[in-house]
């Protein structure tokens, strides 16, 4: 299977697709359902934004679903996840409730942050999800700190620290790399390279566009991964997790992926062509590919898949319904949660 995108760096090897191990029936079906849940959730969020039910910034994850779903399959109980503002997919993958996420998007009382955080700022202690951060790159040292705490406590946990190709140019990323490698911290840096940071294509912002090499001078191993193939993501994640859990320090996984929608809801999208988007969409869509595989391997037939599709749709409709009718937070919440 071809990679989802032509990597602009001539040195970059195309990820070895032949080496991608197959999924079991359960894995393929479960990954399909998870990716579809994220896709449908995001489509619904987009609609609700258009209806004025969601305000401010709203960054959709459509196109990138295989990354979080594949990585989540690697994790064990107690492992942690942290990311930036394009976070809805990460939360759903972590097992956070779609109702609570959607109600946060609409700014309602039973959203994950009681309506105070919104799209970019949600957290769940239960599910090990540490946000939801709006300042590009700021989650990277924080994720490194979560890993520090795991090492300090001597447990077996690892931390997934996600950030984008644009964030990869922030200085604090490299300060984090240095400490993580120096102290052998169990953190996987998952760079979601969707080729654009707002309207800036990666080659216009990065001197080294093979982001898996960004850890070289800190002795952090890195790999480029086909981030549109959930199996490739899982395989690379397993390897990186084993490395971290063995006490060997951090690992960098550069996920070659693509976002179909605009950066946020208002995006003139003049920086790329319609054809470019359509090409990825029709040829390398992570969900379509999983669907074809499932049919081909007879893990399910069309009917079986339709049942999954319907169940997912119901789940998302319920979430939207809930988020539309949940009340706004009580005004007494204005001054709560500032100190404890």
């Amino acid at each position, binding site marked *: 299977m071809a990679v989802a995108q032509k990597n602009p760096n001539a040195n970059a090897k195309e990820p070895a697709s032949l080496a991608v191990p197959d999924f079991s029936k359960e894995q393929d079906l479960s990954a399909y359902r998870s990716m579809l849940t994220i896709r449908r959730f995001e489509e619904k969020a987009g609609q609700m934004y258009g209806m004025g039910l969601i305000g*401010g910034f709203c960054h959709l994850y459509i196109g990138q679903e295989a990354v979080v779903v594949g990585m989540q399959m690697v994790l064990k109980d107690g492992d942690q996840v942290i990311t930036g503002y394009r976070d809805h997919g990460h939360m759903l993958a972590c097992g956070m409730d779609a109702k609570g996420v959607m109600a946060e998007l609409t700014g309602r009382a039973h959203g994950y*942050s009681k309506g*105070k*955080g*919104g799209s*970019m700022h949600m957290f769940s202690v239960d599910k090990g999800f540490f946000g939801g951060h709006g300042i590009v790159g700021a989650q990277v040292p924080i994720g490194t700190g979560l890993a520090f705490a795991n090492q300090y406590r001597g447990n077996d946990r690892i931390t997934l620290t996600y950030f984008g190709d644009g964030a990869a140019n922030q200085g604090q990323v490299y300060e984090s790399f240095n400490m993580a490698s120096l102290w052998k911290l169990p953190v996987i840096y998952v760079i979601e390279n969707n080729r654009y940071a707002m309207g*800036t294509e990666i080659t216009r912002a990065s001197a080294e566009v093979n982001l898996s090499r960004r850890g070289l001078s800190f002795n952090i191993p890195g790999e480029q991964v086909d981030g549109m193939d959930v199996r490739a993501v899982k395989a690379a994640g397993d390897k990186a997790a084993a490395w971290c859990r063995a006490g060997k320090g951090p690992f960098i996984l550069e996920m070659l992926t693509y976002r179909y929608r605009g950066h946020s809801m208002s995006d003139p999208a003049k920086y790329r062509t319609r054809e470019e988007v359509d090409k990825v969409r029709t040829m390398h869509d992570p969900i379509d590919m999983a669907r074809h595989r499932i049919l081909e391997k007879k893990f399910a037939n069309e009917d079986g898949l339709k049942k999954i599709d319907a169940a997912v749709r119901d789940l998302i409709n319920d979430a939207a319904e809930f988020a539309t009718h949940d009340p706004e937070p009580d005004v007494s919440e204005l001054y709560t949660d500032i100190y404890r």
Partner: protein
Amino acid sequence: MPIEVLMPALSPTMEKGNLSKWLKKEGDSVKSGDIIAEIETDKATMEVEAADEGTLGKILIPAGTADVAVNTPIAVILSEGEKASDIKNAKLAASFETPAEASAKAGVSKGEGGQSKAPDAPAPQAAADPDIPDGTEMMSMTMREALRDAMAEEMRRDTDVFVMGEEVAEYQGAYKVTQGLLQEFGGKRVIDTPITEHGFAGLGVGAALAGLKPIVEFMTFNFAMQAMDQLINSAAKTLYMSGGQMGCSIVFRGPNGVAARVAAQHSQDYSAWFSHIPGLKVIAPSNAADAKGLLKAAIRDPNPVIFLENEILYGHSSPVPKLDDFVLPIGKAKIVRAGNDVTIVAWSMGMDYALKAAEELSKDGIAAEVIDLRTLKPMDTDTIIASVQKTGRAVTVEEGWAQSGVGAEIAARIMEKAFDYLDAPVARVSGKDVPMPYAANLEKLALPSVAEVVAAAKAVCYR
């Protein structure tokens, strides 16, 4: 000439120490770099090195002496050909003079009354607004267009001016303020940066120290927090630290303040933060004409200027005089609406609340005088004081938090300079003391409102 060795200080705060041990005896020869003694304080032990060559002529402070004051002569070194007997009569070479003694000799003034007292800070000087010739055409334009025109005009005028920031070029600005600049001035002068605020702010400072005149756009001032060190420690202070040799003519601009529904990390007013810093000028216009005239002034100003725009105001239209070169003075407030009953001081988005409140108040027979501060630093205190002397009452309006806010500063100045004129305590209307909530209902409550300004004005009028 015999050379004195003085009791050294181990730290900036050390005043005395113990001379624990001599490692050379009188008559020993010493080379520069030889360790001749050991001294200690409660914190540390240090070796005293000879700085000169010769013979240890005389030990003035014996080993084991406690509490030897810093700069006390502890020994004398004789150069070749000198004898111990020379010591008594000789005028010692390393005769020590304190900075104060040196200053006194040179006639440096000690400050008022001969005490070491800081002189008064110079009063800021600002010219009045230029006269707009009769018959000048007024053009209605948005603040966004006015800012763009200001940059374009200054870039045409001075090739050292360039714009740099995230998405300023090909994307035409995240908020479209730099629209068309790339097309007119090209990629050399309109530069898209990576997302690396601390880096490009510092690079801007370096370019400015080398004489260029960067306009650095922060996509919003929330992201300037990444660059804070370069703004405060480099941009603001270098002129002073270099004794006036090296300054930076640089503008840091972008939207500041509260935006709609973007929650705590993207919705904050930094007016007070920057206006705290000596060396920075801080401007926060409320309308298109001021935005244009002041941005042109900021670009020409030889100092670092923080230019705080406002996302919500970008789309507001107001008249701008059609002049070839419309430049406004930095540091001059403007009385936007005259009145005798109460002074309302605001800037940027706060003016929106202030003017609407003044309109409401007029219906109740209260004539508010509304002052648009325009520049937060240096602050035009005179205009505020003159108004309060007339009205006897004042209300400040800001989106930022009250504690250590700009309103707090205005209130303090009024208290210092117009205390006897006040008929009521100064009232502050500000953002609530909470991070900005996302939920629509809470966000509204967190912000100042026209109703709050009206209520504050009535309260100080005892109405």
